């Protein structure tokens, strides 16, 4: 490459022309950072990666006991209740760890930000990838449970990757927005765990979204995780579950909005991160 192709002009408020190309150039750093976070996640723990399986499994047990045995809520179609809970728990666990970790990612990596240049977008995105690895691992329980209940998937399962991508984007948008604000206002560090705890109960994780009365269903669908969880259930439980289209559309719209908001906020603040962190 010639020197001429590398002229950089630094000026106040100058928009980065080659931002997205730069991002591509730094893809190796992205891999390395994601790899680092995955590698250190379960270092110096006794049961290591089993943690990724244990947490959703135990939550599934408790939710099944509380919502099915005690509250006597119905499952979707003939699907076993535990399986229905798990199908909702997988995207929710992914969403909550991804959003929680991404929101703190810039602050926890402050040493990198104040000492080296790279497109900062790499940091929160790499964090979301780590939660994604956890999601893949916890699919192991899903397979085991399906074998246990002798529950065969239908052709719907083929659409699952689409909903995984949707879950990814749903957590990335707010994650970017909050992590950039968190650099300036650390209040968000306290807001997020609270919001996520709250969200576990307002999202249809322990119960089916069909349990929500019809007249409230549209309002309920403003929670973008409703569409994601319904989608997961539709893929996994097959004909027992039915997609509620308005909720899927609202999820797509809200996700797109947050993604736009997140990236805009992030790009706007990116250059001041090193000064504020």
């Amino acid at each position, binding site marked *: 490459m010639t*020197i*001429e192709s*590398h*002229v*950089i*002009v*630094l*000026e*106040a*408020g*100058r928009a980065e022309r080659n931002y997205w190309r730069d991002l591509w150039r730094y893809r*190796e*750093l992205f*891999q*390395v*950072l994601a790899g*680092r976070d995955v*590698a*250190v996640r379960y*270092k*110096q723990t006794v049961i290591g990666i089993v943690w990724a399986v244990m947490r959703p499994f135990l939550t599934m047990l408790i939710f099944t006991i509380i919502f099915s045995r005690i509250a006597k809520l119905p499952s979707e179609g003939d699907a076993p209740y535990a399986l229905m809970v798990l199908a909702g728990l997988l995207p929710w666990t992914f969403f909550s760890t991804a959003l929680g970790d991404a929101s703190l990612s810039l602050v926890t990596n402050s*040493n*990198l*930000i*104040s*000492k*080296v*240049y*790279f497109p900062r977008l790499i940091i929160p995105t790499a964090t979301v990838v780590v939660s994604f690895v956890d999601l893949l691992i916890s699919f192991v329980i899903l397979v085991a449970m399906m074998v246990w209940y002798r529950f065969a998937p239908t052709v719907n399962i083929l659409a699952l990757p689409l909903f995984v991508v949707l879950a990814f984007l749903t957590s990335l948008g707010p994650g970017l927005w909050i992590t950039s604000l968190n650099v*300036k*206002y650390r209040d968000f560090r306290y807001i997020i765990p609270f919001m996520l705890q709250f969200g576990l109960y307002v999202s249809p994780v322990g119960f089916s979204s069909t349990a929500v009365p019809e007249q409230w269903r549209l309002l309920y669908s403003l929670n973008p995780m409703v569409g994601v969880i319904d989608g997961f259930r539709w893929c996994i439980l097959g004909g027992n579950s039915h997609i509620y289209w308005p909720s899927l559309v609202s999820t797509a719209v809200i996700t797109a909005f947050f993604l736009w908001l997140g990236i805009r906020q992030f790009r706007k603040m990116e*250059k*001041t991160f*090193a*000064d*504020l962190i």
Partner: protein
Amino acid sequence: MSDTVISVEGLSKRYLVGHQAARGERYETLRETVTRGVRRFGRTALDMARGRQIVQGDTVEEFWALSDLSFEIKRGEVVGVIGRNGAGKSTLLKILSRITEPTRGKVTIRGRVASLLEVGTGFHPELTGRENIYLNGAILGMTRREIKAKFDEIVDFAEVEKFLDTPVKRYSSGMYVRLAFAVAAHLEPEILVVDEVLSVGDAEFQRKCLGKMKDVSAGQGRTVLFVSHNMPSVQQLCTSGLMLSHGTALYRGPIDGTIAQYMSSLDQTSRQELRSRKDREGDGRLRVVDVSFHDEKGNHVEAAICGQPLRVRIHYESQFDGQEVPVDVAFNLRSNNGILLTCFANIQTGAERLAVHRKGYFECLWPKVNLRSGSYMSTLFVGVEEQTADWLQNAFQIPVEEGNFFGTGRLVTRDHGDLVMEQVWTGASA
């Protein structure tokens, strides 16, 4: 094609800094605490609503770390950037390495920049040496292939072959630094920006690093910007210099001229009355206001004499009232070219508790001055009850005159190094 690789025009950078209002008394009433809290909350809430930065403290002030700085650097130059603490060196490097953006002005850079502002950025303690080499390399902008190609060289340079698969949290600090520097030393960008990183590690390794840096700059006409307080290494490494003071360029030219300019600026500040210096650190429970020199009998003198006793009195004002408390008073001596010669400190001698008065002085008796004639710069530190109370860079100078050190009537002149040693010579048949 222009030969200028970096051109900086009117560069300025502003920071906002908060100040705590001075509290006259140590204690304040509940009402004062509450009103201050409410006022502060009002301000931060307003700032947040306007999307502004939250600044800690009672009043906010603008601080220009760089103001209207302009200079140019040609291809292949090795530029030493020097200046006192707070002159704007680090801010300049941060802007050049694109970590932060300028408030005003423009920088044009032709070529790929790699910056080394800290040794071992992004090292993860849980990962092994091998993994960290790849991690750190990627962070510094090397591709996986480049790192692979240089892997053996890096390991060899760092001398850590045996521990490659041990997590770096088990490394000794020396090994850690060696590994970190080794990765950085194998960067091959067109422009390299280096902040004070050679000040780590043992002397031998520092020499090795300096040699490596020299290779880096000598080969392939690479451009290097090098910040350091270590004048001998700047002199060895750099071809030209840039001296910064209060955010502007005070001197740009050959390295010898830059260093001379820097040394003379140190002299000027030290002549400034200590009492009025603002660039100090510490909690201020004790402030040094003056330093004076005295002979054995306590008579005031202007300079020390080689071979004679010297009393150095460090005068202070404090918030104590004659209590005997743990005190840590220290001053060091640097030669003309910036080499650290020695350090005087009360705790070395076991005198760890001293009486501290509202106004008073600490005295250090130096029974026999063993410096050749010249002027020696000193940085002063006072800690009280294990907290830094006052810390002044280049606080004062000790002028030393030629003297009859060996009692032979012959004066010791300045030609043979800075130190004079007691010595006894005899001859014998073997």
